[in-house]
């Protein structure tokens, strides 16, 4: 079965007054129908930029998709013109963003913002779109959906707003649902509700989900396949069990170690990753993680490793075997 989405060697750069920012550096992955993919990494590692590139939402100056292909159902999205891309966005591939307050237009009603997609993509009339929007609001768990249709974003709480955003995204039953840190701006309890909501909808509608976050905990309960990203590169790829049960990249290890755990004694110090986050304006030669890596060897500073398989479906980009010493 051909994959639904196939990203090959995607490279995105930003040309700024201070220099060229290498945001995404040749990443590749595939998404099959019904997959749940998680992309994990710290802030600024390029995960948002990578999916924005897929959606064609990178502003062309100063950004530029320098290389790569994004094949959706066999068609390269990067080659499409504006009108063609507009037909795909919102209808086949949909996205929700991090901050629901700023991501919703404050002067338009929630209902209108949902109906728009239905009218534009599915050709519905006003009344029909209205009815369907109310159904959607109901489906995402907003009580009194009929009344809430004509309310404005500021009249909703944070969790409700995010639910409304999800309703907006799912309006046309897309095949791929991309969530860019949708719960980062919400409290933990609401977070859990939203994640459950997405899981339920995913099972109901059978869509593929790409979930982006810096929170390892979320991925553990949600994703099947995981990609760990650092400085615009993928450093480890595998199933959830691989990543959490048998992490092999030094960065993944460090991430997992730095998560505070309830069952640790309070005597132990919180582990941190030493050093500073990478400056995407001037990446050092070699592996981008090398300056902060406790396993780094001479080779790491000279050459950037590629993703190589070390198990079934489990790949890492590293010169070192963390269980022993040198690999290559």
């Amino acid at each position, binding site marked *: 079965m051909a994959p639904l989405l196939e990203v090959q060697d995607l490279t995105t750069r930003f040309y700024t007054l201070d220099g060229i920012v290498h945001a995404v550096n040749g990443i590749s992955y595939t998404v099959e129908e019904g997959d749940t993919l998680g992309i994990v990494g710290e802030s600024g590692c390029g995960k948002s930029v990578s999916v924005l590139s897929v959606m064609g939402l990178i502003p062309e100056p100063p950004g530029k998709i320098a290389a790569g292909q994004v094949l959706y159902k066999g068609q390269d999205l990067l080659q499409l013109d504006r009108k063609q891309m*507009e037909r795909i*966005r919102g209808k086949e591939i949909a996205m929700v963003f991090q901050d629901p307050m*700023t*991501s919703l237009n*404050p002067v*338009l009603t929630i209902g209108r913002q949902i109906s728009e997609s239905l009218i534009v993509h599915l050709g519905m009339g006003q009344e029909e779109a209205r009815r369907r929007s109310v159904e959607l609001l109901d489906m995402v768990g907003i009580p009194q959906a009929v009344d809430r249709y004509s309310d404005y974003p500021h009249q909703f709480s944070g969790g409700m707003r995010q639910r409304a955003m999800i309703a907006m995204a799912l309006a046309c039953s897309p095949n791929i649902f991309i969530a860019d840190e949708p719960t980062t701006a919400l409290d933990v309890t609401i977070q859990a509700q939203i994640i459950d909501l997405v899981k339920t909808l995913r099972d109901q509608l059978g869509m593929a989900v790409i979930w982006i976050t810096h929170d390892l905990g979320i991925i553990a309960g949600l994703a099947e396949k995981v990609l760990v990203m650092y400085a615009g590169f993928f450093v480890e790829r595998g199933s959830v069990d691989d990543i959490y049960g048998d992490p092999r990249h030094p960065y993944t290890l460090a991430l997992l170690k730095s998560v505070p755990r309830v069952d640790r004694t309070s005597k132990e110090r919180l582990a941190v990753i030493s050093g500073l986050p990478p400056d995407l304006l001037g990446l050092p030669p070699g592996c981008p993680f090398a300056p902060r890596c406790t396993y780094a060897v001479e080779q790491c500073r000279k050459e950037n490793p590629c993703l190589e398989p070390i198990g079934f479906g489990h790949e890492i980009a590293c010169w070192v075997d963390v269980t022993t010493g040198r690999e290559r």
Partner: protein
Amino acid sequence: MTRYIIRRLLQTIPLLLIISVILFVLANKMGDPLASFGGRRRIRSGDRERLTRKLGLDKPILVQYAIWLVGNDWMKVDIDGDGILDEYGTRKGVLRGDFGKSFMEKRPVLEIIKERVSNTLILMLTCEVVILIFSLLIGIYSALRQYSTLDYVFTAFSFIGYSMPIFWLALILMYIFAVNFKQWGLPYFPTIGMYDLAVGRTVGQITWHMVLPVATISIMSVAGYSRYVRSQMLEVISQDYIRTAYAKGLPERMVIMGHALKNAALPLVTIVGMDLPLLLSGAVVTESIFAWPGMGRLFWSAAQDTDIPVLMGILVIISALVVIFQIITDITYTFLDPRIRYD
């Protein structure tokens, strides 16, 4: 909502009072209020005293302020200085439209102003419409096509237009479109007055005569506001909700018209509403240059003649208008922005 309007209206009362105090102090210090009663003959000293008392000008300043506001025709005045109250005063007070009599024309100020107000309004309203249309068009285009050639051209024009003294622009326009057009045998624009006396006060005449003055005032304002619209649009376009709109696959026109514009236009309402004092200031100079018989020109000639009552009358009316316009603008803004509406 109504509560908000009422609250707003109540807030302006102290404001208007303070403005009136400032203007009153100015009026008081600036000249001799009895000058309009002189005429050719010199006033006999006895007459002068009687008039002074009749108009309440001998009272302490606070009382004078009160009289200025509400007049003294409802109270008895001691005219001949003997301590016995004789007749009622003759002033009606500013609140009832009595601004005194013009020094020059010996007519009630309000009458003179009324004749001119409509002329200024015709000019102002036309300007506002022209300004709005062009500012929006240029501003939106510049924002959408940032860094394009036309954007640079517009920006350059904006800066230049906005840095010019208005009368210099008027002179240039006059020189090119009136004087030189005439010399070159082209149809030329008139530069004086509102209509040709020979033809009369027709719509055609007024429109033809309006072209240069409106162009002068509008070019300057459009220069400023198109930049403002541009920066507002740019800011709005960079907002997250615009990105969401694009992410939903909405076509560009719909994103700009339906989503961006509504947000960018909100502050424009405030600005346009507050534009009134500037437009009026511009009117003084423009009307004077083009001999347009409006309030601006009246102010200028009154200033030249030191016709205090007229000057004060215009100032009070204009200040009141500005305040009222501000309230209207605030209320309109509240209507348009749903976030405020439900507070």
